[in-house]
């Protein structure tokens, strides 16, 4: 069993979430195909992945919404389905989509929610609204809120009871940059107070900024996981530059093509400003290899008499890893 688990450093008591070989199907369709990961207490774990990858499905199993299919699932060492009543008071859920009673005001909504949360006594309504910047909307009917404002109210409700474990399914979708930033702060503050967070997002920057560890899912499977550094280091360094010419000019000048570097072909993108050329060096590349690559490119440039604009060595990004994971499978 434990062979299936992706062990976090430290385990057993320290684990908030354990998933081992989870399969989840809807009728004949297998939405989750044997995934395994663990989340330590106090950790922020991000589930990234394509649309329909199975992130929400996985979350809903862990939240005790859906009966787990095959595999091993534990939340605080308990069965999220059978021990729902024990787990619920300790968790906060922000669904990807959940409705409000539109006829209630923002204030009434928070009041109702507070009346139904175990540990919300400490949180005043004003505090809860201030946390998400909705003070001025207290008396407004929920159906009159904008999409982003509803998302903020969602967050206010999810964190109202100061949960030990927070499920955030795309919390910042639809938020403006300022609200997104404020949301990150709310999440980081909760984490600083010891909360564990399982987050999904399509904003890779968000994951890079917040996550201790992350996993990338695609079509029901986890393809990569680890700390942001571990995951990104697999991406390999990149050497990039721009040629100040159009597609047609570039093709005419370099009829026999751009050079290979260390056996790697470039990816060429034609933009309005010129021709962008990127070499992705093999995974986990050393600084020395990048240096050698630059040297050979400079030699080539001198040879053909062209200027390499904005020549740079850059670290692979999470986006590169993401695109590769998706691309490999496709």
């Amino acid at each position: 069993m434990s062979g299936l688990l992706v062990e976090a450093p430290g385990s057993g008591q320290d684990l908030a979430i354990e998933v081992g070989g989870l399969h989840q199907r809807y009728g004949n369709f297998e939405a989750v195909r044997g995934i395994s990961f663990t989340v330590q207490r106090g950790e922020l774990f991000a589930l990234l992945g394509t649309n329909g990858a199975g992130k929400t499905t996985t979350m809903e199993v862990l939240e005790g919404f859906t009966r787990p299919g095959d595999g091993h699932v534990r939340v605080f060492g308990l069965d999220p389905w059978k021990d729902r009543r024990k787990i619920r008071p300790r968790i906060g859920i922000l669904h990807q989509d959940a409705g409000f009673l539109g006829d209630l005001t923002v204030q009434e909504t928070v009041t109702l929610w507070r009346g139904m949360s175990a540990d919300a006594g400490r949180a005043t309504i004003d505090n809860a609204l201030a946390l998400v910047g909705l003070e001025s909307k207290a008396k407004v009917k929920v159906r009159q809120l904008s999409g982003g404002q509803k998302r903020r109210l969602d967050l206010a409700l999810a964190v109202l009871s100061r949960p030990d474990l927070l499920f955030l399914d795309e919390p910042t979708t639809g938020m403006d940059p300022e609200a997104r930033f404020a949301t990150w702060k709310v999440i980081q503050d909760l984490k600083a107070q010891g909360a564990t967070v399982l987050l999904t997002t399509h904003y890779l920057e968000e994951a890079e900024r917040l996550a201790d560890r992350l996993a990338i899912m695609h079509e029901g499977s986890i393809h990569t996981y680890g700390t942001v550094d571990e995951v990104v280091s697999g991406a390999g360094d990149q050497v990039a530059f721009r040629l100040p010419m159009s597609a047609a000019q570039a093709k005419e000048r370099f009829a026999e093509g751009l050079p290979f570097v260390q056996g790697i072909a470039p990816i060429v993108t034609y933009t309005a400003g010129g021709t962008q050329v990127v070499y992705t060096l093999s995974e986990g590349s050393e600084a020395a290899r990048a240096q050698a690559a630059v040297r050979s490119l400079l030699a080539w440039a001198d040879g053909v008499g062209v200027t390499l604009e904005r020549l740079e060595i850059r670290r692979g990004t999470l986006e590169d890893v993401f695109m590769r994971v998706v691309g490999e499978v496709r």
Partner: protein
Amino acid sequence: MRTDVLHAVRLARIDLTMLGRNQTALFNVVLLPLLIGWMYTTLAPEQSIEGVPADLFILTGLSGMMLGFVVFVNLVNSFTARREELVLKRLRGGQSSSVAIFGGAGLSAFALYAFQTVLLSVWISRLGDGGMPSNIPLMLLTGVLGVAVFALIAAAFSGITRNAELAQISVLPVLLVVIIGSPVMGPLSVFPEPLQIVSKLIPTTPVTEIMRTAYLGRDFIGDGGGTLTVAEQWIEALPSLGVLVVWVGVAALLARWLFRWDPRHG
């Protein structure tokens, strides 16, 4: 358990607040059945039924039919709309148990039903001798069981109703059976044979008969219509109460089987 009750009360209070803000719904739910009752009294063919003035007989038998509106239609609508609007999903994601969420819905329906019953009692009292109903505890128990049956049936029905618009239609068959099949206008024995069988099977019939008995202090469950003491009323009502308890069980199974929290289903 205590938390469940507390949560149910809070949810019920919110339900009633919102209903208060929606006058059309309030009219349909609370006043429509009374209006139908009034219509019935104008249609009554005889001066008296079973030895009771016709209008008194009819009004004391409205309680069964009222459940169809105030509990069944009301809750099918609200369960279905809230499922489709993903409100049920939110509630279920909170800290309230399913029992508390159902309890809240049932409680708000019960409060409305009780309010309606009080209105009806005042009306009946003004028609009759001005006194109180004969057996209020029996009415209360019957009311609780009746609301439970129809709240659970509503939960089951909402599960097979795709959206709030269709809820208007999907409730009609049940409503029709309840309106036609309950012995409001006369005792069961005057119904045509096939209708009698339907009437005996549906849960509004015991409610109608017990309530009428409890209002008037006379036997409208067995035959006769003779005067009954309070103790005799309880004894006479026992089999009908048993039928209601069985109905609660059946309806609970149906609800368990058919109810849906989430629209993202098949």
